């Protein structure tokens, strides 16, 4: 029963918090009041059995708690009549209106959901605080679950959430959708959180646990929710497509021993065809791609290539050009250089051209400590047959990588290069021997 209640809570949490927040206009308080409904359910349902409509039951209790709260406040401030007027405008003056609340006014629910999303992901909060709050109020995760997902202490996450709620209240963030003028900036702040949660699961920077599928799943679910609520927002669809296409590759990201496998070496038969289909389909609805839409198009180039050598690298290079126009960053330049290194038989492309670009990027302060830059240099140098330099670049990457699995991958590469070098020097000494032999003869 406990598990069942938790599951129902998870499905309903955002709707409950959203509906209560519309009444009390404070998502921190709304979350507490909605939690009260959960506590009541945990007390009563195991005893009385599951109600016929558990969602409506929770909604009724949560709203009643909200109104109790307002009444107590009004009583305290001597503003009874004002409250009655206010409740009437909210359509909450008759208790009988509560129960069917789930089935009617679907638009109102959507509106509450959007307000909740924009409030929980408000830019006054730092990205980490936004992520924790989003998982709590939008995804319905418990503090324990969030802590587990982020490999953090429960008390740390609990504090982060309390502080986030306090920050929102102190900044006077109302429970409203942003005005048109600030909508794009606020939306960017929402999408950033979803992207961050996915990335945290996809490429954990630290420690041995480099893949946390649960976080990827949560991010995907949030992105799918956003796309359902904002079906005309190009970047929402772009982000969703990007996450679907990236998640499609997760099953191939490690080998039988649990070690990471690089994109071009992955067994593509293990890619998730359903997610690829969903990603490509979503991408078709993106007509003016922004930064996420362009990244999704790049991911689509990989998804469409049945074999790694079928990848349309020229198109990827062009997409990176477009991406650099709207969101220039050294990492974009790095990825473009890698794509350039992969293009064959085209003047101005290939590993030699890429090496020039990478050497230029190595001068950039932000990239000097970025292991992937050195990893990319190692790759290009190896393809140019410069094994000694490649080994050195590999060592540089290794020195900068903390992630255990990535370290293993790089260490294996150093070993492989050592083997090349050993065989190359053996071949060279054979050569000398031959030359000497010729001289003698």
């Amino acid at each position, binding site marked *: 029963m406990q598990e069942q209640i*938790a599951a129902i809570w998870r499905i309903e949490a955002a709707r409950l918090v959203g509906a209560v927040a519309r009444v009390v206009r404070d998502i921190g308080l709304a979350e507490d009041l909605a939690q009260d409904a959960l506590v009541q359910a945990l007390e009563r349902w195991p005893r009385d059995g599951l109600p016929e409509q558990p969602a409506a039951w929770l909604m009724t209790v949560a709203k009643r708690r909200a109104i109790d709260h307002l009444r107590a406040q009004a009583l305290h401030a001597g503003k009874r009549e004002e409250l009655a007027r206010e409740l009437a405008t909210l359509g909450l003056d008759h208790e009988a209106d509560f129960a069917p609340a789930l089935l009617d006014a679907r638009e109102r629910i959507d509106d509450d959901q959007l307000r909740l999303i924009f409030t929980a992901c408000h830019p006054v909060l730092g990205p980490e605080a936004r992520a924790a709050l989003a998982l709590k109020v939008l995804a319905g995760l418990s503090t324990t679950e969030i802590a587990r997902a982020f490999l953090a202490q429960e008390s740390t996450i609990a504090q982060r959430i309390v502080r986030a709620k306090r920050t929102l209240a102190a900044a006077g963030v109302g429970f409203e959708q942003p005005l048109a003028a600030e909508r794009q900036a606020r939306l960017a702040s929402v999408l950033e959180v979803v992207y961050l949660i996915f990335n945290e699961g996809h490429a954990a920077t630290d420690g041995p646990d480099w893949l946390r599928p649960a976080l990827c799943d949560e991010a995907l679910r949030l992105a799918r929710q956003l796309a359902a609520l904002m079906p005309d927002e190009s970047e929402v669809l772009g982000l969703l497509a990007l996450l679907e296409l990236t998640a499609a590759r997760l099953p191939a990201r490690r080998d*039988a021993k649990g070690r990471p496998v690089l994109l071009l070496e992955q067994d593509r038969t293990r890619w998730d065809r359903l997610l690829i289909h969903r990603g490509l389909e979503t991408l078709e609805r993106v007509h003016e791609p922004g930064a996420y839409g362009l990244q999704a198009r790049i991911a689509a180039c990989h998804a469409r290539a049945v074999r790694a050598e079928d990848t349309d690298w020229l198109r990827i290079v062009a997409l990176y050009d477009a991406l650099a126009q709207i969101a220039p960053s050294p990492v974009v330049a790095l990825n473009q250089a890698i794509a350039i290194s992969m293009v064959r038989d085209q003047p101005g492309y290939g590993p030699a051209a890429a090496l020039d670009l990478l050497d230029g990027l190595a001068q950039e302060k932000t990239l000097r400590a970025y292991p992937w830059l050195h990893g990319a240099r190692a790759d290009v140098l190896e393809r140019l047959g410069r094994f000694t330099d490649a080994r050195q670049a590999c060592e540089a990457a290794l020195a900068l990588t903390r992630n255990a699995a990535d370290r293993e991958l790089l260490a294996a590469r150093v070993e492989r290069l050592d083997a090349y070098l050993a065989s190359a020097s053996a071949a060279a000494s054979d050569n000398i021997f031959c030359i000497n032999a010729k001289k003698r003869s």
Partner: protein
Amino acid sequence: MRFMIIVHATARSEAGIMPGPDDGLMAEMAAYHEELVKAGVLLDANGLKPSSTGWRIRYQDGQRTIIDGPFAESKELIAGYTMIQVRSREEAMEWARRFPAPFGKQGDGGMIEVRQLFEEEDFAPQPGREEFKQIRAELQAQKAAQG
């Protein structure tokens, strides 16, 4: 984790009788699936044409035999499916509980069956994973000790 909600066929669905626009069934199904979409859990959903449009291939001692539909025993046939991605078995159960009677509220409303899909984890044991789990546990213990 992913679950498939399978709608079993009935004599009516096998006869190709579609629910009428007035009986509210289509609207109810659409509303349910919209809920799934808004919750971010719907992966895929489709209705299947009657088995008279399908065929079977039976394999015996390396030989293939093609058998054209329709097939008897309509209850063992499939009329449609809805695939969802959720966090727990209980959540799948709750969504399944909300699934509308696939053939309406009068008489035999049909039957659904819920099955879990295999996941990556279900395949060949991965020695590295156990190692990872152990290291992760140690790391968490370390973090806890520091905190």
